[in-house]
Structures are given as structure tokens and as C-alpha cells.
């Protein structure tokens, strides 16, 4: 390193210089930093560390820009990939606001008086999640959609004191896997049901549905509610918040717990995360809810303020009897989502939903007309649809990429020769027509 004099590396992230280290060690009556680490068994001290040497920002930035540029991103390609993660419009105000140091570099608001910004924003988020989903209580967010759904299933078991989780086969297979991972160790049983006419057995804790479902179609939640209620089970729904811009919210249709992947509203796709799990429920189940919850209260002078509340549900108080082990969650993404919902607002959320709807159905109408392609599922879909293709989706997708198109999700392991195609407000008519054009090369 050209950095220091001699072989001392002085990092720009740390203020202590050799001079100050000596000074502070002097206060401690020590000669060397090593004297601070004497509790470590000496045979294990100072192991070799095979990590590259320090690198300048200039060089590292160049390297990482090249690494990033080697990926195929939705800014440079027309993307029709969905399946739970979506390319949606994020207003330009979101990044400058969410990255303000005061939001970005604070932590869980344990000191409420020094964290009113984070707390009030969280209260806004909870309000908007409730309104969007038609629910009575929401928390400040979970890790992401799938684990959020898993926690909802666990919660349903706690509420009902039962151990059988019924889950529709129209729920994302990945989400089902995550529910399994969470439920199995606790001795809970997960049963998969056909969505057509789900029948729950005696003692069912809950029925779990996705809305719109994994394949993009609207589930009949009202009917599912009846099926659940018959057994005294809760209806647990994982909903796409963007669809809630136009479709009836699960709360109105009888859902007891609603979760969702909030990524679609305000969060970049970022190759899988960080995202933001939505979590809402009826008020009566509040004390079984996992996650952080912010409440409104007053201060010593009667002034309104916000604080973390119902903390006795949480691990830092209740430890092994907590409603979940979640601690650090995804607060910053909840904030991003709150800002986005605030900016889109009542009208914008509806517009986004309708744009998705019209564009997806336009795409469907074009593709449906190409020989060899069909839409095997009947029903009302929102922004995604299953398309049966004349060739293997993975082969088609490689060809599409050459035309600048990232194709749909290959689900041929579930339905032969099918892809799950997603169209959002980000896809222009031109892109949709280019997609149809490229697909028709495979027509027969």
C-alpha cells in the first residue's frame, strides 16, 4: 500500500492512528494491543488470514461495476419474469429519502424518544398495509414473503392450539417448502390440498391460500373461508400487494391472517433480497403475532409519540416463549414501501394494478393467437399467466434473450412445456409485441 509510512495500513474507516493506540494503551497500562487478547488460547491466536489486501475505492468500484454489468438486468432487457418477485415502478423519491443517513444508519428504535422518525414511518407502514389488505392490525414487516407465510401458519397453530396446516397446491412451491422448513421441527404437519374444492380434516389449524395464486389467477377466497370455517380453522392468505390496487382485499373475504411479499411495492429485485414480508391479522390474534409492532402513545407531557409495543411477544423479553425468534427485520424496506405507497397513493395504486391487468391481458390475447401456444388455465388472472409452449421454455428463453427479452419462468416441471409469464406496467406495448413476435418464431 502506498497508504502509510512504513508498513502500517491506516484505514479510512478507523480514526485510531498508531500514536493514539499507544496513548490509549498507556491509559490502560498496556504495551501492546496483543495484551487485550490474552483470553484467547495462545495456540489459536493470530491465525493466517487468507483475504486479499486492502483495495482502494477507485479500483474496487471499477471491478464491481464490471461484475454487475456482466449480469442481464431488467433495465437493459425487457423482462417478463415474475413468480413472486416483480419488476415494478419505483418513484424517484424513494431512494433519496430512504438513504438519508438518519433513516439508513439508525437501528431498531429501542430508545423511542431518539427514534420518532423511524417509529412514525413504521406506524404509517402498518396503517397502509392494513388498508391495502383490509385487515385490522399489521406489524412493521418480516424478512420476506415466504417466511412471513410460514410464520403465519405457525401463528395459526398457536391461535387454534392445533397442529395441522392445510395448504393449497396453487400456493408457490417455494413458499410451501419454506412453510415445511418452519413447521416440521415443531412437530406440525403440512398437508397439500387441491385448490379446486379443498377439504380440511377435523382439527385443522388453518387453510393457506395465495391470492392471486402462484399461477397468477384469482383464488375464490370466500369459498376457502367457508371450507376453513367449517373446521374452525383460520384462513391464511399470502397476497400480492400490487393486485390489491384493484381486487377485493383478503380481509373483506374473510382472511384471518394475511401475509405478502412487499418487494413489489418500492423495493428493487436485487437478486433475491433484501425484501419486506407483509404481515397482518385480525385484532383479536394480536398477541400471537410475530415481529415488531409500533404503537401510538403519549409522552410525559401528553404529546403524541410512537414506540415499540407489545414487546412481551418478542424474543428479547420472552426468550424461548416468544412468538418468533425474529429480531433484526427489514425495517428499511418497510420504509421504502411506505414511501412508495404514499407517493402512488389511492389513485396510483389503482393505476398500477390496472396497467398490469390490461398489459398482461393484451399479451395473453396476442400469444393466445400464435399457433402452438395456449393458456391452459381458465379463470381470471391478474398480471401473470401460464402459457403452454410448442417447445421447451428453457430453449425458448435462450432464444428470447438474443432478442433482448428475459422470458417467463420455466415451470415445465409442474406443467409440461409451460412458462409462467408476467407482464407489469414496466413492459411497454412495444416490448409485449416484440415478445409475441419472438415467440411466434417457435409457432407451429
Amino acid at each position: 500500500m502506498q497508504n502509510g509510512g512504513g508498513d502500517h495500513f491506516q484505514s479510512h474507516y478507523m480514526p485510531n492512528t498508531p500514536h493514539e493506540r499507544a496513548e490509549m494503551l498507556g491509559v490502560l497500562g498496556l504495551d501492546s494491543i496483543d495484551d487485550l487478547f490474552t483470553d484467547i488460547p495462545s495456540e489459536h491466536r493470530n491465525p493466517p488470514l487468507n483475504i486479499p489486501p486492502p483495495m482502494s475505492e477507485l479500483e474496487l468500484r471499477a471491478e464491481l461495476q464490471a461484475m454487475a454489468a456482466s449480469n442481464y438486468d431488467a433495465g437493459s432487457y425487457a423482462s417478463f419474469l415474475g413468480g413472486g418477485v416483480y419488476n415494478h415502478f419505483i418513484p424517484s423519491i424513494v431512494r433519496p429519502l430512504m438513504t438519508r443517513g438518519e433513516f439508513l444508519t439508525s437501528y431498531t428504535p429501542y430508545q423511542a424518544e431518539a427514534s420518532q422518525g423511524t417509529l412514525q414511518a413504521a406506524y404509517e407502514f402498518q396503517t397502509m398495509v392494513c388498508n391495502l389488505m383490509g385487515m385490522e392490525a399489521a406489524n412493521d414487516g418480516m424478512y420476506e414473503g415466504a417466511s412471513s407465510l410460514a410464520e403465519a401458519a405457525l401463528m395459526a397453530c398457536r391461535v387454534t392450539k392445533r397442529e395441522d396446516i392445510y395448504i393449497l397446491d396453487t400456493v408457490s412451491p417455494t413458499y410451501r417448502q419454506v412453510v415445511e422448513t418452519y413447521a416440521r421441527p415443531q412437530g406440525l404437519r403440512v398437508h397439500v390440498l387441491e385448490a379446486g374444492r379443498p377439504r380440511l380434516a377435523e382439527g385443522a389449524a388453518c387453510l393457506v391460500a395465495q391470492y392471486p395464486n402462484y399461477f397468477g389467477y384469482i383464488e375464490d377466497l370466500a369459498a376457502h373461508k367457508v371450507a376453513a370455517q367449517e373446521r374452525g380453522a383460520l384462513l391464511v392468505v399470502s397476497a400480492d400487494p400490487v393486485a390489491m390496487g384493484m381486487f377485493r382485499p383478503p380481509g373483506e373475504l374473510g382472511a384471518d391472517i394475511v401475509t405478502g411479499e412487499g418487494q413489489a411495492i418500492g423495493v428493487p429485485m436485487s437478486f433475491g433480497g433484501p425484501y419486506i414480508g407483509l404481515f397482518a391479522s385480525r385484532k383479536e390474534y394480536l398477541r400471537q403475532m410475530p415481529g415488531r409492532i409500533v404503537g401510538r402513545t403519549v409522552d410525559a407531557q401528553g404529546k403524541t409519540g410512537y414506540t415499540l409495543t407489545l414487546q412481551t411477544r418478542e424474543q428479547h423479553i420472552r426468550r424461548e416463549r416468544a412468538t418468533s425468534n425474529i429480531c433484526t427485520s427489514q425495517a428499511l424496506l418497510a420504509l421504502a414501501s411506505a414511501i412508495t405507497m404514499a407517493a402512488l397513493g389511492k389513485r396510483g395504486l389503482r393505476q398500477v394494478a390496472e396497467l398490469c391487468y390490461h398489459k398482461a391481458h393484451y399479451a395473453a390475447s396476442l400469444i393466445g393467437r400464435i399457433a402452438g401456444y395456449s393458456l391452459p388455465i381458465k379463470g381470471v388472472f391478474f398480471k401473470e399467466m401460464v402459457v403452454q409452449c410448442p417447445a421447451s421454455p428453457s430453449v425458448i428463453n435462450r432464444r428470447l434473450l438474443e432478442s433482448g427479452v428475459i422470458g417467463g419462468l420455466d415451470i415445465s416441471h409442474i406443467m409440461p412445456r409451460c412458462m409462467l409469464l408476467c407482464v407489469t406496467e414496466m413492459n411497454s406495448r412495444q416490448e409485449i409485441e416484440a415478445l409475441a413476435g419472438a415467440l411466434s418464431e417457435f409457432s407451429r
Partner: protein
Amino acid sequence: MTARQEDFRRLLMERSVPGRVGAILPTPDVPLQKLPDESLLRKDLDMPEVPEPEVVRYFTNLSQLNFSIDTHFYPLGSCTMKYNPKVNDEVAFLPGFAGIHPLQPDYQVQGALKLMSLVQDYLVEITGMAASSLAPLAGAQGELCGILMIQKRHQERGEGHRLKMLVPDSAHGTNPASAAMAGFRVVSIPTDGRGNCDLEALKKEATPDLAGMMITLPSTLGLFDQGIVEVCRVIHEAGGLVYADGANMNALLGQVKMGDLGFDVMHLNLHKTFSTPHGGGGPGAGPVCVQPVLQPYLPAPVVERRGADGRETYTLVTPEKTIGKVAASHGNFGVLARAYTYIRTLGDAGLRQVSENAVLNANYLLERLRKRYHFPFDRRCMHEVVLSADWQKEKGVRGLDAAKRLLDYGFHAPTMYFPLTVAEALLIEPTETESKETLDLFVEAMNAIDREAGEAPELAQGAPHTTPVRRLDEARAARRPDLRWQRDGG
């Protein structure tokens, strides 16, 4: 607070005015399609109608109500509130990273997979373990994964009866909570007078139903367990596996490798040690690292490197006996990108200095504060120090009061009442990114608070006095939960 400042406590729904818009969306450029049956559509959507300038001004003003690392010293123990380099965020927002979809085929995202693969390698190197999975989204989820791996390993060896998990009494709450979530019975192990694991108590619990033990190192008391090798030996001999909560790795980077000490599995808190901004409570990432014995059980997916010599390709694979998936995608990639940037920026030399300076700073605080604040151990600390306000409590100033009073002095408070085993605990973690000048100012404030406790305890009892709100009524918040704005006031 002026009327205008008060105004920014009005909520979005209260600011909402019919007809205002906060964003302009495109006019549909495709032929309009038939909408679904009315019965499927919602009648109304009770969301804010606020113009863009107001959204900006609202959230900007809110932000200023916060303390944060970018504005304040924030010695919140156990949370490693260190400086969060801006370049890390810049990298995470690169279009080629922020704009890729987790379900794109591997061949479309080789750059991202390479980054993940390198992060796996670095973490393995730093921990001295054999393999890692980046899937867990926070420390607590990493713990759950680790514990599930231990569970599955026991089960596969026909030892499913091992249902007891030991956890020291000083452990972070997530440890027992994670063990319980995995279906274990949690048994608490006391800490001895020197702050180490009580070996006698431990040996008593080394029974045939022992699954393992979760140990935070350094412990949440800020101490390095002097008997750690022996602890691991005892557990192993009883057929158990040892889990390391590596959330406090900031103390040990480059000083010692967990794998060398006898741990079988551990997680790291990338947001803490590897400096992702804490965002008001996330996002994080809690990768798990394991010894070979547990490698087949890693949570899915992991990245596999194939080929060599500049012709490497990278693929996501599912470990053979995986405990499964804990999230829909493959980890908080944005956090991983930040960790990668951080590791490369600091390099070998810088990482070692992190722990050196973190430990030095904490010991400096300990030395300067121990005359006025009770330090319950006769040792040096590691990267954080737990003090007790019990001397102050005698004068009527509890730990809570002292913490709130610190806010008036312009410092975020330490972690209060944790670990639970120290009365009136104040857990102080200065981190390596703070200067001696800042530490000295903090010492002055702590000393002033002690003086005040004698002279005018009501100052601390009524604190904070200078924050946007005074002390909040948390009891009321819990008794009458008001969790969202409602038109009729709820």
C-alpha cells in the same frame, strides 16, 4: 416545538386531500381489456392522496427526529453500530445488481453468483469453517438454520431423542427463541463469577438427551470465555454439537477462528460485523458456516464454483441433506454485496484492525468509566463492556434514567437491562470507527450523569428533556394498542 413542527406529526392519512396525486402513471399504451366481474373488484382503497413535494418534506422531517450513526455516537451494545461506508450502498444499487431477478437462469447472472461465491469463501476463511450458506436473512434465521442442522444430523444418526439445547443465561434472546422454534427444550446455563460458562453446571447437563449448546463468543457480557475449548470438549464428549453465535465477531476478526476452537456451526451477522446500515431495524444477513460434518445439511441454496483458471462458472445448488429453504430466494443479496465491498476494502490488514480497535476502544471506555460505574468483573473486556448503574440506582437514578439522560447529552443510549444477568445493565459497544475524542466526550457525559445523580436525580428521572418527545408512556401503548390510523380515531 412550533406549530409547523407539530404539523409533521400529522399522519399521511390526515394530510390526505381528495384528488391530490403523488405520482403520474403512464396512460395505457395497449388496447384496454375487459375488466373482471365487479364482484372481484374492490370498492374503495383507503390510501393517502398527498402530492410528491409533501411526501418528500414529510419523510425528510421525520428522518430528522432520529438519532443515527451518520449523526450521533450510538454505542448500542450487542448491535455493532459502526460506520456504514457509502460505497457499499453505491455498489448494492448498481443496475446490474439491483435490477436482476432471483429466478433468472444461472447463465444470466454469473457476476452476481461469483460475488456470492467469493463471500462464501471469505466467510469460510474468516471463521475457519469448511463451508457456508448465505441463505439466512438475519442472525436469528441463521441461528434457526444452525440449530435445525444439528437437529437433522442427530435425527439422521438415529439420535432424535436429543432434544435438549443448552443456552447460557447471558445469551441474546434470539438464541433460546431459535432453539424453541426448532422444537428444542431450552436449558439455561449460569455464568460464573469471572463471566465464563459455569463448567460444573454445564457438566451436570451433559446427559444423553443433550443436542448441543449455543454459545455467543465473546459473550453478551463482552467477555471471551476463558474455558471455551473445554466447554466445546464437554459438549462433544456428551455427543452434542456446539453452535457459535458469531454476532460479536467484530471483536475477533483475524484474531482467532471459531473453527479452531471447536465449534461445529455458527452464524455471522453481516449487518453488524460487515457493516450494512441497520436501517432502523434491518435488513440484515445471517450466513451460516459449518464444519464438514454439517455441510450436507446447509440451508438451500449454496453457490458452487465449477471450473478454474478464469473459466469458472457458478451455479446455485441444493445441499444433499439440506434442512430446506428458509426464504423464497437465496439470501439478502444487497447485504452480501455490501459485505463483499467491505471485506475487499479493508482486506486482511484492515479486518484485523477492526477487532483491534474495537477492543481497544471498549477497554478505554471501561478504564475511564469504572471509577464511577460498577463493572461487575475483574477483567478486561472485548469489543463491548457491560456496566451496571446499581451505584446510581442507590441515588434514585436507574439504568433507564441514565440511558434517557444520555440522549440529552447528544449520545444514543447503550443497550439497557441486557444481559439480564447484570442488574441495571448498560451494555456499551463503541466500535472501531469512533475516535478517542468522541469516547472522551462520552465519558464526560457519563460522569456528568453520575454527578447529577447525586446532586439532582430528577434530571435523569425526567429525562430526556431535549428530544422531539419526552419520555413515552410505554405501558399505555401496550395496554391500549393503537397500531394504525383510523378515520374515526380508532
